[in-house]
């Protein structure tokens, strides 16, 4: 029982972290109809910037404070992401207005390659660490109830809290501002949105900036957990089932989806894995998402797919 709870918690926490990456996808999709495969690359790029600057800054300017270094590095990394957003809008999106989804998707894959190359050129390909002072050791709760207690990972817990806060903020942004509506309009029809005076360029820069910051937060947390290294991009692949399960257009969907996938994959691996040789969680997550989709083709909270003549 205690172990079941641990697995459950573990799943929930991992799920929360997936949500954070999924959120980036959702934001950009919701606002422009672009399925942004570069989200993984953005996470890596942001994390690399953060990791490197937090190490460089104290060297360059000769100060000690870790907190200051982290804060400054965060700010600089955010600026990097803004620059990336701006360049992407200028050089890529602007020229692909009104194109089909598949084309836009490929363009973001092109961006992925570019960012992967650029990130490694600028920041190197080694493992770097981000130390934002997250506790690494587990705590044990409910010792009185269960033998050995229920283990909870504090680092995950913090990460989950940060993720939740970010989501709350973004939800507010979408619900309460008129930009939210404009974003959805752009996603539906670029050309028509232009025709009523919605400035696509500005909107895109804004959204990609926000997505960049989300990527930065995700990169920071994952990076502090795993170390910052190229493999971070593969996290994006693990977050994809979350996106479709929750619905491509739904911010809360990314969260609920994350939790379902997180719990689902951990439980399956731990309880089913041993019978079939293990290593099933990654495809299990996809199959789980697929099963949900069979009942709701637009994901749990996605906008209904319109089908009309």
């Amino acid at each position: 029982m205690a172990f079941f709870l641990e697995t459950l918690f573990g799943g929930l926490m991992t799920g929360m972290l997936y949500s954070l990456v999924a959120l980036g996808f959702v934001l950009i999709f919701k606002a422009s109809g672009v399925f942004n495969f570069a989200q993984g690359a953005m996470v890596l790029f942001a994390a690399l910037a953060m990791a490197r600057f937090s190490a460089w800054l104290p060297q360059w300017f000769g100060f000690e404070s870790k907190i200051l270094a982290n804060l400054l590095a965060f700010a600089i990394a955010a600026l990097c992401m803004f620059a990336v957003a701006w360049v992407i809008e200028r050089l890529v999106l602007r020229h692909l207005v009104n194109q089909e989804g598949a084309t836009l998707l490929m363009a973001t894959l092109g961006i992925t390659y570019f960012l992967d190359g650029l990130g490694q050129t600028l920041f190197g390909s080694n493992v770097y660490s981000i130390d934002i002072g997250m506790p690494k050791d587990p705590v044990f709760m409910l010792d009185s109830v269960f033998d050995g207690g229920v283990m909870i990972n504090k680092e995950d817990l913090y990460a989950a809290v940060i993720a939740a806060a970010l989501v709350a903020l973004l939800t507010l942004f979408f619900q309460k501002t008129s930009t939210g509506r404009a974003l959805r309009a752009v996603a539906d029809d670029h050309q028509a949105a232009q025709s009523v005076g919605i400035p696509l360029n500005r909107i895109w820069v804004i959204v990609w900036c926000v997505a960049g910051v989300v990527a930065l937060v995700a990169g920071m947390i994952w990076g502090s957990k795993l170390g910052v290294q190229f493999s971070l991009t593969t996290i994006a692949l693990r977050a994809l089932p979350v996106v479709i399960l929750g619905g491509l257009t739904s911010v809360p969907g990314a969260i609920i989806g994350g939790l379902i996938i997180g719990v689902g994959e951990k439980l399956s691996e731990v309880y089913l894995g041993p019978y079939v040789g293990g290593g099933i969680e990654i495809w299990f997550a996809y199959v789980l998402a697929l099963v949900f989709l069979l009942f709701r083709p637009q994901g749990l909270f996605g906008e209904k797919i319109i089908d009309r003549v």
Partner: protein
Amino acid sequence: QTEQFIPLLSYRTGPYAPNGIPWANGKQDYIKLVNERDGGINGVKMSFEECEFGYATDRGVECYERLKSRPGVALFDPQSTGVTFALTEKANTDKIPLITLGYGLSIAADGMAFKWNFPYLGSYWTGADALVQHLGKELGGLDKLKGKKIALVYHDSPFGKEPIPVMQERAKMHGFELQLLPVTAPGVEQKSTWLQVRQSRPDYVFLWGWGVMNSTALKEAQATGYARNKIYGVWWAGAEPDVRDIGDGAKGYKALALNGYGQDTKVAQDILTYVHGKGQGTGDKNEVGSVLYTRGVIIQMLTVEAIRTAQEKFGKGKVMTPEQVQWGMENLNLTAERLKELGFDGIIRPLQTTCANHMGSTSVRVHEWDGKQWGNLSDWYEADPAVLDKMIKDGADKYLAEKNLKRREQADCGA
């Protein structure tokens, strides 16, 4: 034709770059050292070209195709288990020897079956065997392993799967329980693996990882509170990049050390003087003498010595053909004195290859991470021939049968 060409595969980008970089640097620097210090091998200078393949098998094969027909090519170092598998057959037709130090096909130790493969110093089978021996020794006898439980957390690829047969064999012999826990490559998400470890509470965990999988495993172990000093890694999970950024979190973690290392070894000093000293160093100075860097140096040293041996037979000061190098590789005899002379004292043990034995030596130690650096080396272990020889022979025979190939004739060994 005056230069001996050494093709160098490398991965300096992608998920395995942190480990690939020092390794590749070591390989380059030793070539530079020999050229600079000794003026080549009996006067034959070596040239090289790196080919980046990002640990992707098909790109590695492309590199092979591109570089194999360069004039003066000596041998090939496939640099990953996947590429080794893909090249084993091609090398057979192309007649180019493959040096796979500490990786690749375990059954290729059988030189009568695999003429062109040279898993020098040990394969995953010998590694797994040595780890079990080490455990036995720590416990005060292999019989103490009875009833224990060992979990093998492995990279889900041919690399990670290679040790399983030996582990199973040993489990049968000593009556310990083996739990297999695959980790999907590249291994950044291991929560469920370590939850399972926590659930089944194995006495020991063997970590057969590579690249980011290693550090992630240790971090997850920390996060789930599994004692790090109960974790034992393969030699690809026992270098600085694997633990450096965990620091104290990995204290007590042990791994196989295929080779000695350190900047105070003679060869490291030579490299610092002759290569870095002349501003020719490939990477960072501090990296010289690190675990993987040194491994790269060893590979190149063995290459050089094989060429030297071949020259002794086929003509000093000449550029050797791959076939001649192959002869050199299976007639290598590095005595303790010779190693000392070369500056590898304490790095590896003497090795001698024959036509039938392509491994040369199976000596390996275990070292431990103290939170800052690797150290506390154990005694040397040798793989137990009683366990392995038959497995290797059977495996090789099965391979040959499947491929419709024949063992080499004894006559083939002379040439």
